[in-house]
């Protein structure tokens, strides 16, 4: 009989997998609390001194945890503000974070859809035309070295002058930002079938269209999802930034802007948490679709 080493709690697969991450998260939260105390200390102390009330160290310490406009809000403050603004109002009230998230989400999704479609079409053109590959591809790559987000404000101004407001200008910025990873990823995906497979298609005298649908397209699916995951985050960033220059009334970007103007740090942080939740949810959703597609295509 084989002698197995005794399995301790340390070797349990769940512990081995999640213990390091949990430790890091706990360490981050601890550092955050210490930083909150340190950064808000003088703010709170000055507040007490201005009112000339006698105070003890413990009062200041408690004050740093629930200051109204702290330099760095404590995690529990952000969590309660986030939960309050998500669940505390009816979902479509202008003070509800759900409403602002929906505004940003709609621009993100529309832009993501436009950008992904444009990227795929561009990749198809590039793969099928040598002229386009040689004349257009360098410019597409160059267009990404340009800080495209800098274009956002004029884009909004120009489209506003044309009478276009609201959803579409924001989505166009999102689309412009996110078409690139899709186009590049799909070019890689479309040329990923190896020469043997392409030659097999030739021996079957398949038309270019058949090669596309039966070989190139299925082969590019993993590349498609990898680049979609990158693109959806960028699309969200585009939508948020596009809300800044207009002084938009609604959206996560508008919450960030008004939070920074009026020093409402807790509101600012909860808007950031909302953005993080949105982007993780979108990526998780794409991951889910990827797994389902893989299952249907017989990957497992």
């Amino acid at each position, binding site marked *: 009989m084989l002698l197995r080493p005794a399995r301790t709690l340390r070797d349990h697969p769940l512990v081995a*997998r999640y213990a*390091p*991450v*949990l*430790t*890091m*998260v706990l360490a*981050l939260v601890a550092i955050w609390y210490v930083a909150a105390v340190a950064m808000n200390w003088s703010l709170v102390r000055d507040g007490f001194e201005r009112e000339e009330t006698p105070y003890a160290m413990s009062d200041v310490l408690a004050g740093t945890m629930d200051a109204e406009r702290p*330099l760095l809000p404590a995690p529990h403050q952000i969590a309660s503000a986030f939960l309050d603004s998500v669940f505390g109002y009816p979902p479509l009230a202008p003070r509800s974070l759900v409403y602002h998230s929906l505004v940003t989400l709609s621009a993100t999704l529309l832009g993501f859809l436009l950008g992904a479609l444009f990227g795929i079409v561009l990749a198809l053109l590039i793969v099928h035309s*040598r*002229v386009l590959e*040689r*004349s*257009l*591809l*360098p*410019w597409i790559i*160059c267009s*990404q*070295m*340009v*800080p*495209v*987000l*800098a*274009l956002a*404000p*004029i884009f909004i*101004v*120009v489209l506003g*002058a*044309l009478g276009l407001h609201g959803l579409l200008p924001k989505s166009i910025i999102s689309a412009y930002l996110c078409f690139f990873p899709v186009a590049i990823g799909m070019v890689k995906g479309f040329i990923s079938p190896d020469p043997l497979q392409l030659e097999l298609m030739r021996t079957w005298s398949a038309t270019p269209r058949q090669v596309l649908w039966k070989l190139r397209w299925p082969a590019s699916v993993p590349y498609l999802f990898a680049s979609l*995951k990158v693109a959806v*985050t960028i699309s*969200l*960033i585009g939508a*948020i*930034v596009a809300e*800044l*220059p207009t002084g938009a009334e609604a959206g*996560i970007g508008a919450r*960030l*802007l008004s*939070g*920074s103007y009026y*020093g409402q*740090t807790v509101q*600012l*942080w909860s*808007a*950031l948490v909302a*953005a*993080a939740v949105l*982007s*993780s949810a979108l*990526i998780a959703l794409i991951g889910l679709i990827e797994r389902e597609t893989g299952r249907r295509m017989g990957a497992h």
Partner: protein
Amino acid sequence: MDPRKLRLGFIAATAALALAFLLPLAPQSPPLSAHPIVWPIVGAAGILFLLAARLSDQRATLPGLAGATLAAAASLVLLDDAAVAGAARAGFWMIVMACWLSAALGVVNLAGTHQVRGKLQRALDLLVPLLFGLTVFYLWEVAVRGFGVPPVLLPSPSAAATRFIHSLPTLGADFVQTFVRGVLAGYFIGCGAGLLVAILAHRYAFLGRGLLPLGNFFSALPLVGVAPIMVMWFGFDWPSKAAVVVLVTFFPMLVNAIAGLNAAGHIERDLMRSYGATHSQALTKLYLPAALPFIFNALKINATLALIGAIVAEFFGTPTQGIGFRISTEAGRMAIDMVWAEIALAALAGMAFYGFVTLAERATTFWHPSYRT
């Protein structure tokens, strides 16, 4: 390209030029034959197109492109005429059409060139996109000036270029504020810190297993959103921009460098073990060189991210200079040509930055399979 199609294309271009003599240029303008300098140029372009149609093979590229240049020059001279600018009619657009058609044929012809090697091939690789870009800029210029698009909507490239040259001092100050102070400082701190933490995470496996999922999570977040917080903490001047850049560049570097440090093969690692190499020796002689391609990948991603982060941070408050500040204030004043000059500046800075990182990559990872041909 098919010679018959090529011939047809150039004959169509010649026909368009012939039509330009017949159709009116603009309501208040005399016909083309009454313009003293322009009509001989257009005529010469037509003769070159005919020559190209006669050759209709690889040799047609040169006369075709020369004719396109002449036609472009003729249309630009015509636009200086106040009667044509903003009120161009069919005759004028015929010249533009001929120019575009012949330029497109020339690009297609060049791109289809096979059986060239070495330096000539590299020159072609540069020339084709360059011609494509020039054509696009020409069409933009002609369309804006020919249709009389109000400069508030879209300035012509030449207007933006003039503005660029006339406001060099302002642009220089903005460049120093945004790029040299904000971007470069933040980029070096962010990438350096990311690399250091990655080395630690590689040394201590527990740290690595904890940090990698977190790094993946954070690098997928819209981190530019922290810009207003950084402005609140570090003030309006460049440190707040550098702080945003640090945060934005840190996580891509961390994730990529951890992946790179784990990229060294088993055999190489065993070799290091059998040499009795200490960890620092193995790090400098094996792990870091093996990680270089990954590190440069992160450096390239970060080059664009850093510029975007700094410019977005400036939307939340700056001293009275900087690229992002200028873009938002000039857009508010409807001085769109200045905005485009700033965008050109940002584009040039971004491309130069990216190009510099690529050159450094070529110089240090020449041994990598992707560069050995």
